[in-house]
């Protein structure tokens, strides 16, 4: 079945440093989604990428979808303590509406 690998598992940064997490799927995806989960909370949808090579920005967050639609990345510029949490990528293949395959998540810690 479809597998989505996400690295790194943990990332500790000083406030103001940049952060990147990477996802790689074993199969071509119809789209990839990114979620953020604050400690003790539930995952919250951030963005969806659909097109090959797509790049989207949300303030300090930049999301990329690979040309082959098998990999993706999330880059945060100049991290802040409010960025703390776990970031998940989730791939959707074919017509499996809402049936996402999640990566293992990257736990981001930001030291002030």
């Amino acid at each position, binding site marked *: *079945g479809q597998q*989505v690998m*996400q690295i790194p*598992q943990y990332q500790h940064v000083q406030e103001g440093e940049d952060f990147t997490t990477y996802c790689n799927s074993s199969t071509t995806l119809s*789209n990839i*989604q990114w*979620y953020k989960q604050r400690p003790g*909370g*539930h*995952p*919250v*949808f951030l963005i*969806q990428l*659909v097109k090959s090579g797509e790049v989207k920005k949300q303030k300090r967050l930049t999301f990329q979808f690979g040309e082959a639609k098998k990999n993706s990345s999330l880059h945060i510029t100049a991290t802040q303590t409010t960025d703390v949490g776990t970031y*998940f990528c*989730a791939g*959707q293949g074919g017509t499996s*509406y*809402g*049936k*996402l*395959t*999640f*990566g*293992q*998540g990257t736990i981001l810690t930001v030291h002030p």
Partner: protein
Amino acid sequence: DAGITQSPRHKVTETGTPVTLRCHQTENHRYMYWYRQDPGHGLRLIHYSYGVKDTDKGEVSDGYSVSRSKTEDFLLTLESATSSQTSVYFCAITWDRGTGELFFGEGSRLTVL
């Protein structure tokens, strides 16, 4: 806010006992999902529903059953709980005419001793 309520939010039970988790939504969403979250595994799909009495298995369905007798409630049952089912369980919905993004409930933390 997708209007999702999960209950109970926390439960401790013993091996071999039955457990039912409830997901209740107030906005008439057609699509509902149960995921479990475990360290190092992300979230994994257990079962999903595309409407009343229309359910199907996900990636990790063994040991779980679901029922959806009315639109607003999606029940997840562990017939005989095992320690490997200790986890955080999230219910989620998608918009009927959306692009498949999930909106999660607050989660139910289950501990099986």
